[in-house]
């Protein structure tokens, strides 16, 4: 899409980029996966069928 806003984020501080695999909060180990289990059981029937195509096609023009 022409004219699409392309704003790159430049790390100002020259510091290391965040860890390759961002560390989830400590608390994450305590997530009760049960809490979202029913949603997860159902999620594949709700998700758009072709994830790769959907994500590739989700192109927006910049806004405010």
């Amino acid at each position, binding site marked *: *899409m022409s*004219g*699409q*806003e*392309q*704003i*790159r*984020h*430049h*790390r*100002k*501080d020259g*510091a290391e*980029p*965040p*860890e*390759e*695999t*961002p*560390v*989830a*909060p*400590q*608390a*994450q180990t*305590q*997530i009760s*996966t049960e*809490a*979202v*289990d*029913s*949603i*997860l059981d*159902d*999620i594949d029937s*709700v*998700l*758009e069928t072709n*994830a*790769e*195509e*959907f*994500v*590739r*096609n*989700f*192109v*927006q*023009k*910049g*806004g*405010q």
Partner: protein
Amino acid sequence: MLSVTRVMGAETEFGISQPGRPRANPMRDSARVIDAYAGPRGLKSAQSFWDFDTESPLADARGFIMNEAQAHISQLTHLPQAQPDAQYLANVVLENGARYYVDHAHPEYSSPETLTPRDVVLWDRAGDVVALRSVEALAGGEEPVNLYKNNTDSKGASYGAHENYLVDRSVDFDELAACLIPFFATRQILCGAGRVGIGASGEEPGYQISSRADFFETEIGLETTLRRPIVNTRDEPHADPLLYRRLHVIIGDATMAEPATLVRFGATSLVLGLIEAGQCPRIELADPVAALQQVSHDLSLSAPLELADGSHMTAVEIQRMYWQAAAEAVGASADEDTAEVIEMWDRFLTDLAEDPMRLAGEIDWIAKLQLLTGYQQRESLPWNHPKLALIDVQYHDVRPSKGLFYKLEAAGRIRRFTTDAQVSHAVENPPEDTRAYLRGRVVEKFTDALVSASWDSLVFTTGGERHVRVPMKYPLKGTKSLVGEIVESAGSVGELLKSLGITTLEDSSPAVHRDRNEV
């Protein structure tokens, strides 16, 4: 006594997509979205329906006006003809007093002015229903359109979810900005929407707290579409400029979870109250933009942010300082709305420090993270897997049948304040305690005679070429208690104007300004 009550409003630019057709013109589709909603309801949808005469997007709060020649075309929002694809700039004023229109290739819902965080939540959510009904209206046709209440495509483009707060004009702007910058750099832990991918184009795999942080480049500035600033200086009060400024906040994420929206607006209103009272804690970050991104990328919430004096604080500690000052200024006898915000902000900070996952039912970035990590663990997917990017986008789908946020909420996983009935009512009816009441009721009752409208004006035709502009520079006028009986009993626009005390001069120019007869 510090209170959370303040004139506030929320703007949502929706992500827009035609399934399977990434090259569809988003300006055209945005106009189709607006028209699909307005048409069947008999609401006027035209570029000229918004009264641009009162707009001044290039006025800078630092005391100057940007030259139009120096402005980026996207900043010339008061000159709609200057915009590319100008024929698609639909503008509608809804029965609830909101504005629904095409802004920068996105449909935007700007909520009516409200006074409490609870009401912001309600009329913001009404906008999500307006978006849903637009999608539904186009669903059966040849070019269906889907809308997403999110902020980025993770391909370099971002679009906003702005907030507006009426602020006492006498507050020094530099002071306002200095107090707000550390607050805004860290507020995302309370109300970030979460995002898969790090960097504006999501170039590094991972997850971050804010969907907007990677798109900000400077501390203070006028722009909203490029070189985005933490504090936006647009000085367009849409109200009496001698009394008020409108703080236009562009740094927030589009929140879907009602508790997060409540704290987002409530805590910000309280901090503005602290600044107005000269009681705001002074913290100075060494590099606010770097800190903003550092906080967003740190899911452990433990990153030490460097202050100007060389010491360090975490985002939670900085927020706790603002909370402390607000709690002290509020005192023991707070009104209900204020007490609720103080309590929730407090609890959010405690839980964020101890176990953020306790807030999976209240804050979007945590709800989404819990969903993503649950799915990730089941399927053993890396962060850069398209399924996770899909979940990230689909969390924000406005359709309850597809939107993962709505699935979670409907399953009781996310706390909700409003009911469907209240939201439906807010779609059709304005708040009663601001000028949005008059705007909304006039749209409902006298659409035929309404030539154009804006936040601070209504322009009527009274027959022939004559137009009458009713200025509404005072957001706390035009309320139900002030004009309710007049509006409800008026049988015609002539009667309405007469009862409001608006008189027109026989031989005046078509647009008659009646600044002394404010309603």
